[in-house]
């Protein structure tokens, strides 16, 4: 079973057709997907910028990250669920969109970046939590995340434009 078969199967499901053809649900899901960006990416930016040593240098990294975490997680939850619904409704068109694949690759890279950060430099955070400029590896993780999110938003917008 190829990826194309899976996408075709999804596209042909009753729920996919219903979502695609609905007058109200689809626009609401799409609108929520876009607006929840402010809560997900809009907040993760500040953690990334702090890791990069660009802002809030007088605050410990953990003091920026920890209180923001529940809000970011709620935001990302909303963004991912609505995004998955949009994909479900448009599976075949996504398959043919280069922007969709670019977006998926960047999402995976963003996930890998988070994992690498947490299992390496973040393990020793107590040593650098309060330094204005975190170690190079942490700063790179922040900048990589920022760059990827800009790319993901751009690819997502372009994808919708050309579907």
């Amino acid at each position, binding site marked *: 079973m190829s990826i194309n078969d899976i996408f075709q199967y999804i596209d042909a499901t009753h729920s996919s057709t219903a979502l695609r053809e609905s007058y109200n649900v689809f*626009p609401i899901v*799409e*609108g929520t997907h*876009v*607006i929840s*960006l*402010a*809560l997900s*990416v*809009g*907040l993760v*930016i*500040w953690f990334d910028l702090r890791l990069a040593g660009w*802002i*809030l240098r*007088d*605050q*410990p990294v953990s*003091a*920026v990250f920890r*209180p*923001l975490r529940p*809000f970011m997680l709620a935001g990302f939850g909303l963004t991912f669920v609505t995004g998955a619904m949009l994909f479900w409704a448009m599976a075949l068109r996504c398959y043919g969109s280069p922007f969709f694949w670019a977006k998926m690759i960047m999402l995976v890279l963003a996930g890998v970046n988070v994992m690498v950060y947490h299992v390496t430099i973040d393990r020793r955070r107590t040593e650098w939590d309060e330094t204005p400029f975190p170690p190079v590896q942490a700063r790179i993780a922040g900048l990589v995340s920022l760059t990827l999110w*800009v790319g993901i*938003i*751009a690819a997502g*917008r*372009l994808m919708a*434009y050309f579907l």
Partner: protein
Amino acid sequence: MWDRLYPYFLWIENTRLGHGIRESKWAFTLAEVFHLLGLTLFLGTVLILALRLFGFVLQGKSVAGTARELMPWSIAGLTITVLTGTLLFTSEATKCWGNVAFRYKMLFLSLALLFQFAGLQRVARADEQRFHPLASKATALVTVFLWFGVAAAGRAIAFF
């Protein structure tokens, strides 16, 4: 009142800039991409400042200090969003004129800008004792809802 504005909308649409954006293959799309990026940056700063006023984040830093530090990012995000929004509008002004979502967006936008600069920024930068905490929080909440209203109405322009 709105009817009398139509000639101006038509004029804007027929400027060289309006024509240029419509005829270019990428201008409109790129403006949309940056509109969304600017909006994400700007709304993020509004949310963080509101969360700080509520005492949920950055308790180690004063509200005024947080507002000051966010300011350049906030202004940058808002500037990008407004500039690209103006470009998008210029290319399809008459469509916007007849679009009910656009009218709501402009209404929310005026109120949101007012609350942002005369409300949220003011209570955030004032001495902590000057405004009642409840008044500050209410201002923050209204400002956040107005900005999300602007974003929702903006998204809805495409659906009408």
